[in-house]
């Protein structure tokens, strides 16, 4: 699957573990004054309390028994919930902190980007910060000088090069910071979530830069919450849970499994005590009214919300949306359509039916956002309140491509479309079920027409 030098390991991790002692830090936080004062006032009690503290120390393994081998030229994504140990793994790999047990062997020059703009100084100009940041990331002066023009061009801030960065907009700041980092030339690149910043266009540019980096045969380890970025960059994904290696395998497979798992442990009821609103559950139903988590392309999808409004909520604005592994697919939004309920009060239900969902067989989650009448306040804002997968054989919908397996990674929403070929034939494609829809004239299936 990978290129020629893929047999040599770039990173070898053996039984890696990192322990933090929580009680320890709490005891130290009191500062020395407390320690000295206590020791002087009541030496015995102080000693006893010290011993007591030691007993109370709580060991917390941020990472435990992780073994992993990453080959040269592999692009590996690391996923997991907050606190799963992703950041700890990166901190160990980048030598910011040391492991409690186990070992890591790294072959090649490493660059770590745990944050965009580390070491940027607000008072310094863009030009000065390029040099400073470059040096902090491990570039030599000669290297920075050599790449200076390239960095400036990439960051698109030529005119502001001699302005202190404190006057920059956050977008400019991020662009400059990423530009410096992007011009490191390591053999192994370790990146944490840096793409979570910047505008969409720049994010695309960054992804492109990283993709190019990966294609040039270098090794990349990439931590992100953005499954879209993970999927588009990585061939392999490592999934951490509670400090342990949970799964390791082909990117799409793991991402999908991850989606399944997070939606199974959704946190209900979601509540907002300030507004006295409790969402008891969100269920998905099919057109026949039966609860389901599997749908076929072209099915109707009913999202039903059961709520308990203990206080009266006037004119709430509700939005429901469907999120796929590559971002938002579609949504219903009262902010736009204006069909707001007069109020929510007591126990009740509200539902939204999405007609003949034009989705490819993939995994999806539902998010909900309820705003107060003043638009500004978000009463409920929850991702992943429900999960469903779309299943089905695309051949039934007239798909006859040789690469139907790619459907799992393609853009999920398919609006009905028509090809007009050079010989004049028109071909229509739509993801809708013939049994539910009227006939070919309403939503044509794939077929030849004169």
């Amino acid at each position, binding site marked *: 699957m990978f290129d020629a030098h893929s047999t040599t390991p770039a990173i070898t991790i053996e039984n890696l*573990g990192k322990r*933090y002692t929580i009680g320890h*830090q709490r005891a*130290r936080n009191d*500062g*020395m*004054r407390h320690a000295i004062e206590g020791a002087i006032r009541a030496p015995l009690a102080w000693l006893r309390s010290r011993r007591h503290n030691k007993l109370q120390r709580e060991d917390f393994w941020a990472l435990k028994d992780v073994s992993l081998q990453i080959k040269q030229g592999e692009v590996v994504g690391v996923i997991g919930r907050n606190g799963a140990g992703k950041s700890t793994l990166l*901190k*160990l*790999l*980048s*030598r*910011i*902190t*040391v*492991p*409690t*047990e*186990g*070992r*890591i*062997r*790294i*072959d*090649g*020059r*490493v660059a*770590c980007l*745990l*944050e965009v703009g*580390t*070491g940027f*100084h607000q*008072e*310094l100009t863009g030009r*000065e910060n390029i*040099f*400073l940041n470059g*040096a*902090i*990331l*491990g570039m*030599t*002066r000669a290297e920075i000088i050599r790449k200076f023009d390239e960095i400036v061009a990439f960051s698109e801030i030529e005119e502001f090069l001699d302005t*202190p960065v404190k006057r920059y907009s956050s977008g400019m700041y991020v662009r400059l910071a990423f530009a410096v980092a992007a011009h490191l030339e390591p*053999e192994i690149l370790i990146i944490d979530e840096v793409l979570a910043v910047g505008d969409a266009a720049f994010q695309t540019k960054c992804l492109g830069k990283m993709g190019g980096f990966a294609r040039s045969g270098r090794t990349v380890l990439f931590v992100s919450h953005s499954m879209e970025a993970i999927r588009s960059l990585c061939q392999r994904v490592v999934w951490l849970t509670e400090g342990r290696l949970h799964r390791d395998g082909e990117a799409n497979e793991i991402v999908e499994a991850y989606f399944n798992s997070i939606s199974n442990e959704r946190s209900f009821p979601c509540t907002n005590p300030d507004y006295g609103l409790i969402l008891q559950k969100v269920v998905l139903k099919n057109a026949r009214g039966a609860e389901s988590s599997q749908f076929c392309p072209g099915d109707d999808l009913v999202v039903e919300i059961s709520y308990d409004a203990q206080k009266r909520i006037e004119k709430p604005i509700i939005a429901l949306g469907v999120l796929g592994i590559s971002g938002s697919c579609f949504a219903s939004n009262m902010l736009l359509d204006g069909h707001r309920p007069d109020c929510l009060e007591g126990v009740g239900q509200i539902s939204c039916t999405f007609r003949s969902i034009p989705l490819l067989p993939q995994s999806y989650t539902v998010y909900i956002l309820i705003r107060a009448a003043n638009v500004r306040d978000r009463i409920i804002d929850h991702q992943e309140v429900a999960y469903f997968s779309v299943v089905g054989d695309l051949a039934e919908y007239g798909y006859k491509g040789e690469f139907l397996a790619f459907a799992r990674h393609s853009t999920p929403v398919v609006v009905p479309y028509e090809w007009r070929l050079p010989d004049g034939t028109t071909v229509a494609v739509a993801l809708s079920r013939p049994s539910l829809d009227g006939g070919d004239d309403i939503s044509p299936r794939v077929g030849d027409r004169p």
Partner: protein
Amino acid sequence: MTQMLIEAGRTERQYWRDLWRYRELFYFLAWRDLLVRYKQTVVGVGWSLIRPLLTMLVLTIVFGKLGKMPSGGRPYPLLVLCGMLPWQFFSTALSESGNSLVANSSLISKVYFPRVVVTVSSIITSFVDFLISAVFLAVLMIWYRYAPPAAVLFLPFFVLLVFGASLGVGLWIAALMVEYRDFRFIVPFVVQFGLYISPVGFQSSVVPGRFRLLYALNPMVGVIDGFRWCLLGTQSSGYWLGLAIAVIDVVVLVVSGIWYFRQTEQTFADVI
């Protein structure tokens, strides 16, 4: 190809090699601190001259005119400035290096580099001030038409000594500060106090003979005496013993400072 082994227990085998790799960072961090220091000030670099000038005036008036301390026939301002030169370097290095790690905590928790670079850079920054004050002293000596004796050739040794003293104490305080922010309050106090227990505004010869040995335990006594000996040719009895003690002090401080720093360095990112 570079190979690196990170292992529990004995991670930093390549520490000194890294230090060499990151040698340019010493310069860059010091450069940053110098650039930033006088941004948005009106007087700017002038502050590097005004501060020693004013301190010198005050000390000359208090000790020389009001206290009528012996000057051994030398202009009192020169005497004071020769003492202030190493003292001011030592005291600013102490405050700067003490804060260095905490002030750069965002760096420390996000990037790897030998942490000692930060602390040493802050001492280098203070050294630049030292050089500016040295130019000021040279100008003052020309003004007084005072030629230094041949002993001036030993000056680099004493500069090295004060650098060592600053480094040793700086490393200790920087590392301690990471865990005990109490040193944020201790350091200014020690610096203020030290100005009076070190022979900055007066000569160490005014200290009664029986306290001389005890007095010499303060490494700055040997250093300041050395500076005056090199630049003004002052001689004080018990001088060699005092110097020996100062050298031992400094060696112990530097070695133990590096040792303690290395001990705690690995957990800086966890504790800071």
